[in-house]
């Protein structure tokens, strides 16, 4: 049984990893002023983060339209028996709904398509998709794949240390992290995503301590199936963390990945974080 794995660009999967596992990544739309771009295709994250501090309003994103899902599902159905489409939390984006609508459009075609809402974002979503792809390559059925995806999503986690809470406040996503706002001291908040909104994890006195906290979190979460270090604008800082925690990653090779606009726009430049999948 050949099963295709589909996800969306909010997974922040580095293109070579997506390709390696044969994962189809559907781009979201990024809106800047009156212009619309395709996330990761007609606009890069670097370009986004350059614009971000100067924009009056946070550039928004929107889900791929139903038609786009229908096109992709139709194309994939030609040489696959089934499709599993794994997506970002429906509380953060309508992508999941769009995919579900596409499935109902295609109900008469007889193609077996399953859609999973991981309630995650960024590489927590990305690793879930990769894990499912690996299990499928090892012989999992479509029913297995759905269960694997749902379980993996609960073992995945996304954590970020932000430089400032301004972007979260501006974008109205400050959520439960409200207590951290307006600090008189230059501290670095560390947040995670829970149920589609920001949740406080802790505060670091400065960036250096924050990095130490992130590194400690990697140790505390291990053993790990997957590990990536995330950044919005500073790849070298992310690489330094990756080097430090390399031994917690499978093959001692943590993946360094850039946070895309869907999450990144609300966190801002200067973010360092983790996207990981705990072992079963």
């Amino acid at each position: 049984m050949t099963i295709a794995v589909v996800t969306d660009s909010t997974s922040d999967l580095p293109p070579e990893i997506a390709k390696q596992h044969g994962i189809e990544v559907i781009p979201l739309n990024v809106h800047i002023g009156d212009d619309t771009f395709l996330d990761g295709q007609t606009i890069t994250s670097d370009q986004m983060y350059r614009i971000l501090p100067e924009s009056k309003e946070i550039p928004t994103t929107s889900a791929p339209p139903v038609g786009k899902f229908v096109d992709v599902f139709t194309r994939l159905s030609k040489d696959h028996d089934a499709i599993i489409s794994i997506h970002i939390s429906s509380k953060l984006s309508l992508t999941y709904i769009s995919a579900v609508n596409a499935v109902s459009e295609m109900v008469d075609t007889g193609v077996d398509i399953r859609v999973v809402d991981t309630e995650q974002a960024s590489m927590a979503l990305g690793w879930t998709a990769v894990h499912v792809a690996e299990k499928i390559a090892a012989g999992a059925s479509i029913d297995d794949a759905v269960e694997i995806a749902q379980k993996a999503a609960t073992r995945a986690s996304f954590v970020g240390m932000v430089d400032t809470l301004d972007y979260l406040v501006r974008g109205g996503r400050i959520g439960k992290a409200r207590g951290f706002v307006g600090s008189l001291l230059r501290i670095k908040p560390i947040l995670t995503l829970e149920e589609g909104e920001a949740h406080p994890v802790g505060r670091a006195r400065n960036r250096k301590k924050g990095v130490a906290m992130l590194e400690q979190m990697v140790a505390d979460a291990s053993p790990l199936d997957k590990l990536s270090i995330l950044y919005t604008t500073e790849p070298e800082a992310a690489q330094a963390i990756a080097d430090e925690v390399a031994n917690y990653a499978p093959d001692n090779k943590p993946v360094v990945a850039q946070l895309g606009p869907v999450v990144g726009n609300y966190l801002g430049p200067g973010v360092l974080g983790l996207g990981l999948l705990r072992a079963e």
Partner: protein
Amino acid sequence: MAGVSEYQRANFARFSRIKGMIAKPSTTALIDAALLLRLVQAASDALFANRPTINALNVFPVPDGDTGTNMSLTLRSIVESEDVNASTQSASELASKMARASLLGARGNSGLLLAQLFKGIAQVADGNDSIAPSALGVALGRAYEFSQQSVPNPVEGTMITIYRECSEKASEREESSAFEVLEALRDDALDAVRRTPEMLDVLAEAEVVDSGGFGLAVMFDGMVRAITNTEPVAREIEVPMPSGRKFSGTVKSDFVAEAEEVDWGYCTVFAIEAENLDLDRIRDHMDRIGRSPIVDGAPGLAKVHVHMEDPGEALSAGIKYGSLSNIEISNMDTQAADWASDRREDIEHATTEKLDSPSIAVVAVAAGQGMADLIENTGLGATYVIEGGDSMNPSVAELLEAVEKTPSDQVILLPNNKNIIAAAEQVDELTDKTVRVVPTRSVQTGVAALLAFNLNESLDENVEEMIDIAGEVGEGRVCKASRDVSIGGHEIKAGMTFATFDDEIIAVGRDTEFVLGKLITAKSIDAEIITVYTGNGSKAESIQRLSEELTEKFSDLEIEVVWGGQPHYDYLVAVE
């Protein structure tokens, strides 16, 4: 300028300004049409200038944040009305035109209540060419009565209170000039507004005063300045808050969250025109199908304002009574959500709000307003400060009282001084609450420990982490010797500055910043971050400068300079 002294010539500009500011009470005994128009224009301008503040105060009956805008636009529609601006009319004719224009242009609850004021003025004008200033107080009394009839449940603590109180106080007075009357009205209005939270719970909960009432005070203020030719006529005035507090510029954050949850529906406003309208019947009808109805009228005209789930229902009902015009429908859910999101932004800039029932609370001892603010601000909304420090140690009883007052059963105590630790450790036995002490020996260590405070973790986990951090902070203090003193082999003369680190003298000198620099140099070898808290003798500008200088001098270190406002010590330093 002949006859003008050197001094006066040199200060001519200043004197002109001062002269302009001296109130020249109007000698006009009566208010004619021209003056009435000028006064209303001034009121309109004043409302416009204070619009944002009035909007920010708006919580009752719906937190839609537009009382200021509504009042401003209502007056604007009077001032811009063609009828109103037609020439040669008596004050009475003008007042009637204003009343009609205000009714047609009335926006929101507050706009309709304003319309009652103009109705009152029109009534006391009574066909005359001019209005006696003392009649304004009577007009306000009439406005109060009309408001009672327009709203089924008139509520004290809103604009109608201001109408009533100003009118009552005016009737006890003898002013005759327009200036005296208007000035008294303004002052009485401000006083009444200050007391509105006592009359209306929702105002006290949201920690604001009545927005519409404040709008009235603003209007009177504009009128006073118009009468005295004071520039600018429209100015921002301070919100009169109870017990000397200051309006934070926004509403309490719990209120913001609650406002978002309630389903507000649509604010539906329209005018009905027909002969022989029965306002009571219309009002009862609206009361049956909607909420908070206000129905008011002039001959041949009724203005309806009601909150509906289905606005169409109100319009269909209204059309049974006559022809409809001036229809406005706004979605209060969207307004409330927009309002809530604007207020969230404001809250970011205001001081930290307290949590209602945190799982753990922290009580910290501190001296100095800056330190207290810093501690509360860092304390996740669950931290309470007791005044105290080196020279003023709180008693066990005072620590116990503070612990009992917190809204949690689990409390962490930060004594922030070695002489308070022992007292702090007595508290746990004296209360049913669980109290743990993190034995901090300085307030700067207390702040550092507070950063580890995490409401997602248990009491034990918190205490363990906070003790760990407290143990790693090096404590520096810089202060002046008040008398000659000999410590640890150092002879220090009165007036000289000395620095200690973990209670050992590290540096002595004449200049406080120099001594601070020596302290940092001596102790920065293994340090990552140094936080300097400046005392209550330092000025805000010096903090910026000091920060820049220190950052440049110690470029390998991260240095943060913050205002602590502590007494006694020029600088408190935390070395981590």
